[in-house]
């Protein structure tokens, strides 16, 4: 079995894994990182989205061995000094979730979306989140949340640069 070394949410893990083990199952079943859920088996839903070296990936479409030497951030590692990430705050404030099953993936994908485009239009948000399905919200409040997080994050960057 190959041995991998992965940093997940700031902690380094070294494990022997079956070559076919999916990253999402490694996170959930081996590391107990169950905050990242699974919604499908064809990489369509995006529920399992995490950041790998800062970029969003669907962790059901990545093998654990492919994560070797990489840095993974899940929804559980988003807090900065105990405070919620602005995207988490925005999903809460704008009622961007109902059952919450899609939410970890939505939040991670939205963070990546703003990394690429810090000031997206509603249309760009909708297109950017095409790979993440939500059955509860009809997306309107998710779009609103991403917009408001974009505003908040650009604002806080400006102040921190001052």
């Amino acid at each position: 079995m190959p041995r991998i070394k992965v940093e997940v949410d700031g902690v380094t893990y070294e494990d022997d894994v079956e070559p076919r083990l999916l990253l999402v199952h490694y996170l959930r079943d081996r590391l107990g990182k169950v905050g990242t859920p699974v919604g499908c088996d064809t990489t369509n839903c995006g529920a399992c989205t995490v950041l790998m070296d800062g970029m969003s990936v669907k962790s059901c479409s990545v093998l654990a061995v492919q994560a070797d030497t990489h840095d993974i951030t899940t929804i559980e590692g988003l807090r900065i000094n105990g405070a919620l990430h602005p995207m988490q705050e925005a999903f809460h404030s704008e009622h961007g979730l109902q059952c919450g099953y899609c939410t970890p993936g939505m939040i991670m994908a939205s963070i990546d979306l703003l990394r690429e485009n810090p000031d997206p239009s509603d249309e760009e948000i909708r297109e950017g989140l095409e790979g993440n399905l939500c059955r509860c919200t009809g997306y309107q409040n998710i779009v609103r949340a991403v917009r408001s997080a974009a505003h908040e994050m650009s604002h806080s960057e400006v102040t921190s640069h001052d």
Partner: protein
Amino acid sequence: MTEVGTARKRSEDARLITGNTQWTDNIQLPGMLYVAFLRSPYAHARIVNVDTSAALDRPGVVAVFSGADLAGEQGGLPCAWVVTPDMVLPDHPPIAVTEVRYSGEPVACVVARDRYAAADALEAIDVDYEPLPPVLDMQAALAEGADLVHSDKGTNKSYTWVFANGDLDAAFLDAAVVIEREYVQQRLIPSAMEPRSVVCQPFGDQMTVWSSTQIPHILRVMLASVTGVPEQNLRVIAPDVGGGFGSKLQVYGEEVITLILARKLGKPVKWTESRSEGNQTVHHGRDQIQRLRLAADADGRIRGLNVDLLADMGAYLMLVTPGIPLLGAFMFPAIYKMDAYSFTCTGVFTTKMPTDAYRGAGRPEATFAIERLMDELAHELDLDPIEVRRRNWIKHDEFPYETVCGLTYDSGNYEAATEKALQLFEYDKLRAEQADRRERHDTVQLGIGVSTFTEMCGLAPSRVLGSLFYGAGGWEHSAVRMLPTGKVEVLTGSSAHGQGHETAWAQIASDALGVPFEDVRVLHGDTAISHKGLDTYGSRSLVVGGVALVGACVKVVDKARVVAAHLLEADASDLTFENGRFSVRGVPEQGMSIQEIAGATFAAHNLPDGIEPSLDSEATFDPENFSFPHGTHLCAAEVDTETGFVKIRKYVAVDDIGKVVNPLIVEGQVHGGLAQGISQALYEEAVYDVDGNLQTTTLADYLVPSASDLPTFTTDRTETPATTNPLGVKGVGEAGTIASTPAVVNAIVDALRPFGVSDVRMPCTPERVWRALQEGVAQ
């Protein structure tokens, strides 16, 4: 205090946005084993032999069972709604024993030490099938000599259910207009984002079941009766549940089997489905053929309506399969007055996954039919679709109104909702644009779709359910515990899976008890904690469960009043209770808060004689009537006549759901409902091929819409309180889904009227729209 009506941000979000959740699949217990099911690749076949020996030798495999192995203990899956005395109700073993009747039906299961090993071993099970003819078409299934789904029953008909009132013949006799149509409600897959999952842990003779279910309480009773585990030894927990939309209002074979395996092996056992497995074997929704006849006068006044339905049951009758069309039976006349109405529904067996509740359950189908007919009627008489509705709907001063179905609508104001919707929509402006595009022969035509709907919610008055032969009541339970520190625990029998009960119920209790919102914790979804309930479906939680909570709070206050009077040395009748504080009338400074009284009651040092040291109370509410939310939805669709592509340009939803506890949650419910209803109109369909194999097994084939497939909605409300409950609430969970499907299809047909199009079959894909257009033009 005024918590009710405030847009409180949800308490439950804290865990959901941080991944600190408890989905059933998250549960890992020491020694836990994993189950995988082998499923039939045939729609219909006799099981000749199942050889499990090779699978048993696979690494990590602990046990393998076929249906025959479990035949003595697996029992049969329940149907709680025997709609007619002569309904054909076939046996439904959780794992098929002698015959499979839909593709995906379980034939064997493997228990192994991890989920990969369990899945791997499935391929080593050898099953000998003798294929039988699939039965896929409802009309063919009813024909003389048709192949049978259940050969021992001698028929593919499960039941025919009839309701009639008024003289239909008279209504149709020399009616100026008769509209006759056939509409198809395609089969849908509910597609909650969380796949089903079950964990069962044995502990001595006690069994704890965690399931991704909407109905922990009903599930407990049913599992007890199916498996023989005594009810008192069975605890069912619905932890965080990732959506349901009716699909988790079910007693699934996999739940039964997981429990049986845990009992048999004495180990905790888990099963989690894959999406492809789920698309095949989570119950489906809709699937009806509707034959409709409507008679009207020359001025557009409806005289009578005749509805003849074929409803696809699928291969078996599951929990409420046969009753779903009946929930629509009373809704075809909708908000309109008419003299005569007749409804016939025939439930038909096919070799497909059984159907059952899906958001709206029977009522979207009914609303679609009548709202499509109203547009057809308007077209026939060259009237504006709003005008034809206006001429027929119940006016606001005519409530309470007894409909032709015998329902009493307690309240409503269709005029107000419509007026508001027309303004927000800028109806006249869009009609002018439509005329202009028609004039210019624009390749992109504009259509306007109207849907003025109502629904029966708040399921349900127990007496009515009894009269319809439903197997249980429709009440709901709630309890309030006053803790020593003055904090409050609310227990509710409804079981939220995204609806925000933890927030809304705390708001209600906060107002009723006069305690801060933050001091209230809402507990639900565990039969050992919220011990009594009938769970969440049918827009019932607030209308029935919320009202039960109000009842429990009133009892707490009444008990506290007695203690307060004693401690304040006043007469109970001299006390006022405001903002959580009892004070002596005229001496406001002499008082005590209910939270202090909770502490004093706990100490019990100085209670009046004969008073028990507890303020805790419970209440069970059984509604006397349904509630009747209504609204007006308007959709503007741009239809590209060259490609058939439909774009929703504007969608306005004005809903009247009575009083609102939390406007934020209400808005979210409407948005999500709209998405699902629009999606039925445009995208979704479960497709079986000619052999009866489901072709839409993945989210790549079954089109759950993404953000870029849906428009931005304009939502607003009018507020006509329900008069049948103290909160004045009506329910909102299904409104958007029920109203939106016909609004969208009406808009598409409206755009294409000049091309001779009078219907497009759902889902209105570009191909279907384009074909309808070609056919229309050709005629």
